[in-house]
C-alpha cells in the first residue's frame, strides 16, 4: 500500500466517523421517505372470516357481519363509515371518478384511528315491514344496531338472478382538516342481499 492509498483510507474513515457523529442531529432535522399511505376497509362474515356472508335474507331474522377499517396514512385519522342501503337499480359509488353514492346513509360510524391502528366491529342487521306483492318487494325498515331506520325500497323480480336484490354497502370517508370537512376516500364494500319470504313454521 503506497502513501496515496493510506491517505485515501484515512480520509474516508474520518468522513464515515463524521457522519456517525452527526447522525443524532441529522435524525432530528432530516425527514426520511415513508412508505405508501393508504386506508383499508373490509367486511367479514359472521365467523369473522371472508366466508359465510348473508345472502338470502328475510324479514325478522338477525344477520351478523364484521366491518373493519385500518389506518396507514402516516398519522392519526378521523374516519366516517356511511352505511347505505339500495335497491339493485339505485346508484353505487363511482370508483373511477371517486364520487360517493348520492343515497342517504341509514347508519354511520365515526372513528378515530392512530397510524397502523385497526378498528373492527360486529354489525347486526335485520329487516322489518317487508311486503311481497306479485313481482315486487318493498322493504320499509332496516334495523342496524337496534336502530330502526325507514328506507322504503321497492325492487322488481330479477328474472336473471331469480330474486329480489338489494345491497347493503359501506363507504369510507376521511376528515380533511384543511377544509374542515369529510371527503369520500374512494373506498367502499358491499353485500348483495336476496330478499325472500320467511319460511312458514
Amino acid at each position, binding site marked *: 500500500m503506497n*502513501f496515496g492509498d493510506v491517505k485515501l483510507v*484515512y480520509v474516508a474513515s*474520518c468522513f464515515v466517523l463524521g457522519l456517525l*457523529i452527526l447522525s443524532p*442531529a441529522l435524525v432530528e432535522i432530516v425527514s426520511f421517505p415513508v412508505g405508501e399511505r393508504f386506508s383499508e376497509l373490509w367486511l367479514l362474515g359472521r365467523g369473522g372470516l371472508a366466508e359465510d356472508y348473508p345472502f338470502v335474507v328475510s324479514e325478522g331474522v338477525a344477520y351478523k357481519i364484521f366491518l373493519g377499517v385500518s389506518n396507514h396514512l402516516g398519522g*392519526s385519522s378521523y374516519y366516517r363509515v356511511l352505511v347505505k342501503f339500495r335497491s339493485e337499480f339505485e346508484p353505487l359509488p363511482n370508483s373511477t371518478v371517486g364520487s360517493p353514492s348520492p343515497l342517504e346513509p341509514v347508519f*354511520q360510524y*365515526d*372513528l378515530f384511528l392512530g397510524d397502523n391502528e385497526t378498528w373492527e366491529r360486529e354489525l347486526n342487521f335485520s329487516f322489518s315491514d317487508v311486503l311481497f306483492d306479485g313481482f315486487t318487494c318493498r322493504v320499509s325498515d332496516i334495523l342496524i344496531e337496534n336502530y330502526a*331506520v325507514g328506507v322504503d325500497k321497492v325492487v322488481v323480480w330479477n328474472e336473471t338472478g331469480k330474486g329480489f336484490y338489494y345491497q347493503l354497502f359501506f363507504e369510507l370517508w376521511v376528515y380533511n382538516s384543511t377544509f374542515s370537512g369529510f371527503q369520500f376516500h374512494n373506498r367502499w364494500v358491499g353485500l348483495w342481499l336476496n330478499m325472500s319470504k320467511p319460511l312458514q313454521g
Partner: protein
Amino acid sequence: MGVAIEQAGRDLGSAFAAVTEAEAAGADVAGLMVKLGGAGDFLSKAYVALRMGDYENANVLVIKCSRALDGVVGEAARLKVDAEASRGSSLFFAVCVSCAGLVLLFVFGLLGWRFLVKRYVGAVLGLKPMLEGAE
C-alpha cells in the same frame, strides 16, 4: 336539532385538528384519541337518531358528545407546547453533542495524521540502504 348536530360535528373536527397538530409536534395523543373516539360514537348515534326522527334522543347524544370533548382542545394545545419544547431541547442537545464530536474528530484526526505520517516516513527511512566503510 340539525344545527346542533352540525355544530357538534364541527367541534369534533376542530378538536381532531388540535390533536393532530399536537401529534405532529411529537406529543403522545393516545389518551386524547380515546376521548375523541367516545365523542365520535355519540355523534354518529345522534345522526342516526335524527334520521329516525327521535329528536329527544338526538339532543341527549349531542350533549354527551359535547361533554366528551370538554378540555380536549386545551389538553391538545398543552401537549403541543410541551412536545415542541421537548423537541427543541432534544435538537439542541443533539446538535451540541454532534458539534463536540466533530471538534474531537478534527483534533484527533490531525494528531492521528501526524502520527501516521511520522511512522510512514520512519518506515521509508528504515528501508534506505546503508553505505558500509564510508567515513
